[in-house]
């Protein structure tokens, strides 16, 4: 009877190890703090109405940033645990983590960084910025947008759920290769949590990708042909077309792994005819394009930044676009380079090797486009531009090591070594992450209404760049010394420990960089009046998003602009285009359907993890009922009448006139010392006022 209701859940699944207890307590404390704050400030209704049920891509974008940022800290903590373990576990010492635990930590680290940090932050940027860049008011399907976000959140919850129930995550590496991930070699619930966190958020990603494609292809402002679109929009389009092409592969492959584990089928088992090598093929057919899905938006971000801060239009726009399309197309054809060593023939290996190397061609064209843009430009070294300079050096290192790895005989000596780990961190940190940081810095004034502190921003960039080199140069060297990845301990005689320790030091420097980024946001908030962006165009930008107020009103544009050139906003500024008449604006209503469906999706996944069949069935029925209810809901829009729009626009214009212009000169931005003083003074003030209240 108990088995029917609880499946495999029992009291042993509750936290009883030091890290599950610690993790559970942390999450619970965090949750209680948030609940307490909301209750004390009486903001539950506000949160529900203004944020959680919102379909405004600007709000959904900000929510993606918050969740993605939080997961960055979680994944970063995993990284520190890895660095620490490997610094300690030389020779007789086996560090402070058991082998199984260590293997779970790096698996979680990889999953979290790829699926929940990078994808989350990128989706945030695309949500917020792309509609503004193309002159649209919303995405094509506001409902799919909120649904996609909440499915992502369900995945986030699922990947952290093991702290509370089960105590183990997958210990198989981030892609859980078969047959290691089968029931025979991984009998616990770890791989099941892996399956469902990726599956649920993966469906969210697919829906989001469909949505973004529809939006970019069907909702551009009049006159904005494809070849007049901003490059961030192009990068996002290429990325999302890739996503829509390969996430179905992941969805089905995850289902097949699930069937093997849950129903006992034989897709990837070692017996009864299963084919484990087929799993390797399927998962990498998704896995390789995935990393380019992450990279393309960053390419677009950098194109925007180089152009804006060189005060020049992007050079060789068409080659730039063709470069991004080239990368996206080629990325679909190279997956075998992840397993040259599995034993394919020289014909097959060399074919995929050549295909992989060819990707370097369109990538290099992008770099040339940026160089040509900087040529005879007038370059301003704001923080986004600094992120760009760091990106180039680190990404080039990643690219060169990547082409090296594309050569099969060389790959035989470098596969699964720390050289490989250093390569993909060079491209992912230098490329994807720096692009996200650059984009967040660049568009922060548009999103928050005030720009970020430049001084502390510079310190953060330096910490990241220095930290990266200190952390990953030793990994390149270790790889050349024959060190494989994912080792929880190693012989002292190898002489590897000093390099692991150096990597750990680099990790601490990166952690300082992250801390500085948080400080940057807080310091900017403290000085927000002085840093306020009143014109909506703090950088003398060129694309349409800068034509709105900072932050933009819910409808983005009171009147959808007519476009005739690239760099549409720059053109508008030169020509002082006249305003058109105001019209009624149709806006989508908020909806809680996304939340409800995602809750059911989470419960279904949880039911499958613990084999609580009734829960899975009921939840699936719940999803279907919610979907049906939603699709037959005819009342999903409201209208803002033209007169109201006119009033709102006039009020905004008055604000611009009365408030002081934004001070782009960063000399008066507070530095670290002033920040510490300010925080201490505030804390002291709070303490004193509490003491006074008590009296």
């Amino acid at each position, binding site marked *: 009877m108990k088995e029917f209701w609880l499946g495999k859940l029992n009291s042993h699944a509750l936290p009883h190890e030091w890290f599950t207890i610690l993790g559970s307590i942390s999450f619970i404390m965090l949750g209680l703090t948030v609940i307490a704050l909301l209750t004390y400030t009486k903001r539950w209704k506000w949160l529900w109405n203004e944020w959680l049920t919102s379909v405004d891509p600007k709000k959904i974008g900000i929510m993606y940033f918050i969740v993605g940022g939080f997961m960055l800290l979680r994944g970063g903590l995993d990284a520190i645990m890895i660095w620490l373990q490997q610094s300690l576990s030389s020779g007789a010492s086996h560090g402070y983590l058991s082998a199984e635990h260590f293997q779970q930590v790096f698996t979680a680290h990889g999953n979290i960084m790829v699926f929940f940090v990078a994808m989350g932050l990128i989706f945030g940027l695309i949500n917020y910025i792309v509609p503004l860049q193309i002159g649209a008011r919303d995405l094509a399907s506001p409902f799919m947008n909120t649904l996609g976000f909440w499915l992502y959140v369900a995945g986030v919850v699922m990947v952290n759920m093991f702290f509370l129930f089960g105590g183990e995550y997958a210990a198989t590496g981030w892609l859980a290769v078969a047959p290691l991930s089968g029931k025979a070699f991984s009998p616990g619930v770890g791989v099941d949590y892996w399956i469902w966190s990726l599956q649920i958020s993966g469906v969210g990603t697919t829906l989001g990708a469909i949505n973004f494609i529809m939006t970019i292809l069907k909702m551009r402002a009049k006159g904005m042909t494809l070849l007049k679109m901003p490059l961030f929009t192009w990068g996002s389009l290429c990325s999302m077309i890739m996503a829509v092409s390969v996430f179905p592969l992941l969805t089905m492959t995850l289902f097949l792994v699930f069937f093997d584990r849950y129903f006992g089928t034989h897709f990837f088992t070692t017996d009864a005819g299963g084919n484990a090598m087929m799993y390797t093929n399927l998962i990498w057919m998704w896995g390789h394009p995935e990393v380019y899905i992450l990279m393309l938006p960053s390419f677009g971000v950098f194109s925007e930044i180089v152009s804006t801060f060189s005060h020049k239009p992007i050079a060789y726009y068409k080659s730039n676009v063709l470069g991004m399309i080239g990368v996206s197309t080629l990325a679909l054809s190279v997956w075998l380079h992840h397993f040259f060593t599995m034993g394919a023939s020289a014909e097959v290996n060399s074919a995929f090797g050549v295909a992989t190397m060819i990707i370097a061609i369109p990538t290099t064209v992008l770099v040339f486009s940026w160089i040509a843009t900087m040529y005879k430009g007038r370059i301003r070294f704001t923080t986004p531009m600094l992120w760009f300079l760091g990106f180039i050096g680190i990404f080039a290192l990643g690219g060169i090591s990547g082409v090296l790895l594309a050569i099969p005989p060389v790959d*035989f000596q470098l596969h699964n070594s720390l050289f490989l780990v250093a390569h993909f961190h060079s491209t992912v940190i230098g490329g994807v992450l720096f692009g996200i940081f650059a984009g967040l810095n660049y568009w922060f004034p548009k999103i928050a209404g005030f720009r970020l502190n430049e001084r502390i921003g510079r310190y953060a960039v330096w910490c990241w760049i220095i930290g990266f080199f200190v952390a990953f140069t030793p990994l390149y060297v270790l790889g050349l010394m024959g060190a494989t990845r994912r080792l929880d301990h190693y012989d002292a005689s190898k002489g590897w420990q000093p390099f692991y320790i150096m990597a750990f030091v680099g990790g601490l420097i990166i952690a300082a960089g992250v801390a500085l980024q948080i400080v940057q946001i807080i310091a900017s908030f403290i000085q927000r009046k002085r840093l306020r962006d009143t014109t909506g165009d703090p950088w003398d930008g060129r694309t349409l998003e800068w034509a709105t107020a900072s932050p933009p009103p819910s409808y983005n544009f009171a009147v959808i602009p007519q476009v005739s050139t690239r760099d549409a906003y720059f053109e508008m500024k030169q020509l002082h285009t006249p305003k058109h008449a105001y019209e009624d604006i149709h806006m989508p209503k908020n909806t809680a359907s996304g939340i409800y469906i995602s809750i059911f999706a989470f419960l279904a996944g949880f039911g499958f993890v613990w084999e609580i069949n009734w829960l899975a069935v009921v939840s699936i029925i719940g999803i279907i009922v919610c979907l049906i209810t939603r699709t037959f809901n005819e009342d999903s829009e409201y209208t803002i009448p033209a007169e109201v729009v006119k009033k709102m626009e006039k009020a905004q214009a008055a604000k611009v006139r009365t408030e002081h212009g934004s001070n782009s000169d960063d000399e008066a931005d507070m530095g670290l010392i002033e920040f510490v003083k300010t925080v201490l003074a505030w804390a002291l003030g709070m303490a004193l006022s509490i003491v006074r209240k008590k009296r």
Partner: protein
Amino acid sequence: MAKHKKKIREGRAVGLTFLGLIGLGLVVAWLLRGNDVILFNPKGLIATEQHRLMLTSTLIMLGFAVPVLVTLYFFAWKFRETNQKATHNPNVSRGRVAVLAFWGIPTVIMLVLASLMIPATFKLEPQDSIEAGKDPLTIQVVALRWKWLFIYPEQNIATVNYAQIPIDTPVKFELTADETPMSSFWIPHLGGQLYAMTEHVNQLNLIADTLGDYEGSAAEINGAGFAGMRFITRVSTQDDFDTWAHETKQSPTELSTPEYKNLLEPSENHPVASYKDPDPNLYSTILSKYAGSHGGSHGSHTQNAREH
């Protein structure tokens, strides 16, 4: 005043960057003293060829990448807004020659690399035998949890986590696995790795040209004991090899089927072990456990792989 501060800051940044890179190089060089950078220290033909290919390719790529990077950072420096001397052209850059160069130059570089890579891939195909005028030594390798079993069918001996091979002799490692997830067999001093998987035999052909003891490892995660799945390969003279084979044949334990069943039990950091007289059908029995999947009739339902 602000511009002046900026100029100092910019100059300082560039200076510190150079210093930092140099410093990084010095630290790494100092840490490396006395260490064996295996991939730069090949001890066999295959590893030597792979090393050469790696160096050549890297030099070709750096020859192209370094000028490009230098140009980019130089332009960033020259056209900075505090530099009054640089010309500013706010119009979009154009030029058909440039487009041709942008696409053409990387294509040429990639063609050069490909012309190196394709023949090398065929030449260094690990499953091809090495011609060295001698008969190859065959060693059957079974990846187990979490140790490597080496069966020498011609010498009638078997070892765990230790392999000895004679110098200048081509060795065929026939790799498979039993009740173990995908594993990767790697002796970096002698050559690249190759996967050892159930149901398949991958042949790794290597040859050593220097005497010595070389470390080997498992390069693909296959469970909790993966980090301890290491072994030593000793390259000795032919005479020493024959002596060793003869001595091992005097081992007390025979690698019979029940003894092999003991080995199948998962164990971590397994010590080196030697056996005499391995069951001559052992390797083929291991393979046939997983066979019968290609519509063949010799797969019996009775012999299912024993799994946890």
